[in-house]
């Protein structure tokens, strides 16, 4: 299994997650690979956070890292993405909630990532800024980008946003979603069984969500063996360039 997203390092906005502690927890859960992105630290600066993460994972074939940039910074953000790409970043991570931008405002950075051949992981379900049909706009604005939305593409415990998320996914074949925090098992199952199993990736999004429960969530969903292999590791390996790996040792 590969955990396709965790947010590590000192976190201005909430719980901080140490990279080694996260990898040790994944090893306990028989999760063999990880993709990690930096939290926004108290100094508010992404370039040093990106560099710390790049250093922390260097030499590890079982962990890939995502560069974090703030689209509000315009060309500076694009320059930072290019710098990180040359330093081994496997993609870019954007958070419209913490960094305060609308999904469509990320178009320049998403286009830059697509030009570099990098996937874009974006936090979804942020009211006013990052609801499912706002991602539909973004995906249509940059149709060649591989965009991966957290939490099934939406956050809404009355289930109403799932309709819009489904619509966005059916209209945009390069939109993907992560499984973290998605409370409806039938939705997670439908994504793979009726839409496309290549577009759903297991992720914990620790520390926002608890890794053990998120692993249980995806392992308890009803998938065939081929679909499960894609969701649990094949898609992440393909998109983020992770090899098939033994269990992490922490």
């Amino acid at each position, binding site marked *: 299994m590969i955990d396709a997203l965790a947010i590590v390092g000192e976190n201005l906005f909430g719980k901080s997650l140490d990279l080694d502690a996260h990898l040790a927890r994944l090893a306990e859960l028989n999760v063999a690979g990880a993709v990690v992105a930096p939290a926004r630290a108290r100094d508010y600066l992404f370039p040093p956070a990106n560099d710390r993460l790049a250093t922390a994972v260097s030499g590890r074939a079982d962990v890939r890292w995502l560069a974090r940039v703030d689209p509000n910074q315009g060309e500076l953000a694009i320059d930072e993405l290019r710098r990180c790409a040359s330093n081994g970043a496997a993609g870019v991570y954007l958070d419209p909630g913490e960094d305060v931008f609308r999904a469509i405002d990320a178009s320049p950075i998403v286009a830059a990532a697509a030009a570099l051949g990098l996937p874009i992981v974006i936090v979804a379900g942020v009211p006013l800024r990052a609801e499912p049909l706002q991602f539909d706009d973004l995906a249509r604005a940059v149709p060649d980008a591989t965009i991966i939305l957290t939490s099934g593409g939406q*956050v*809404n415990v*009355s289930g*109403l946003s799932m309709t819009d998320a489904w619509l966005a996914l059916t209209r945009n074949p390069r939109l993907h979603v992560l499984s973290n925090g998605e409370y409806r098992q039938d*939705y997670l199952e439908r994504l793979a069984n009726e839409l496309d199993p290549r577009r759903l990736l297991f992720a914990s999004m620790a520390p926002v969500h608890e890794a053990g429960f998120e692993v249980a969530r995806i392992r308890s969903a009803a998938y065939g063996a081929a679909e499960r292999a894609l969701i649990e590791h094949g898609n992440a390996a393909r998109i983020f360039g992770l090899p098939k790996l033994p269990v992490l040792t922490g």
Partner: protein
Amino acid sequence: MIIDFHTHVDEAEAFGWIDPPEKIVGLLDEAGIDKAVIMTYTDLPGMNAGALDYIVRAAEKFPGRLIPFVRLNPNYREQMPALIAESVARGVRGIKLHPTTTLAHPAGDATLDVLRLAGDAGLPVLFHCGDDPYTTPQTLALAAAAAPECTLVFGHMGGYAHVEDAIAAAQDHANIVLETSAMPYPALIADAIERVGAERVIFGSDGPGCNPKLELAKIRGLNLSTEHEQAVLGRNAARLLGLEQR
């Protein structure tokens, strides 16, 4: 005894939601859950004039296993007293309110009428409690304050971004019970038990859309004391439903 306090049974073709009672019973069997509270997806009256008949008959198919709640739209204000009386006469043990679908404000006069009737009849009221307007813990707390004789169960205990608020509301109002379904942060259930007591936290799954087995694992993974786990998984529900504990 394990009681799931929040499941759905309905055949609402207009919405494509076809979940007959056999579907939830199969999932309860798989999870090892003894009993479940069932309710429709559609509100009575209005969308589904036959909702009471349907839910009562669904429960009668599995006597002692499925416990019917009637899902009401308080905006049909004049019809509420008779509907609640008929529901009680037909074995209904509680009321479900979903302000997102009814657009009845939880602290508005129409809803407060229902809560007072429920309080008089000894029926708990399960509210959808999430992140949307009309469903947040802050809004529902206004109803709890206005109808202290009624037990309000906060389904999903605040959803995603309002869980801390739901716990705080329960600290402020003794007639609030927190129900665990769908809410994706297991550690906050343990926090709720610590802050409001195990007797006011109650297990629910929101099945069949949510898997009861996974939702049950969410509680068991907390490694609660036996006393607390039994309270959350069954004893509190039995008390609210007027069932004798096995």
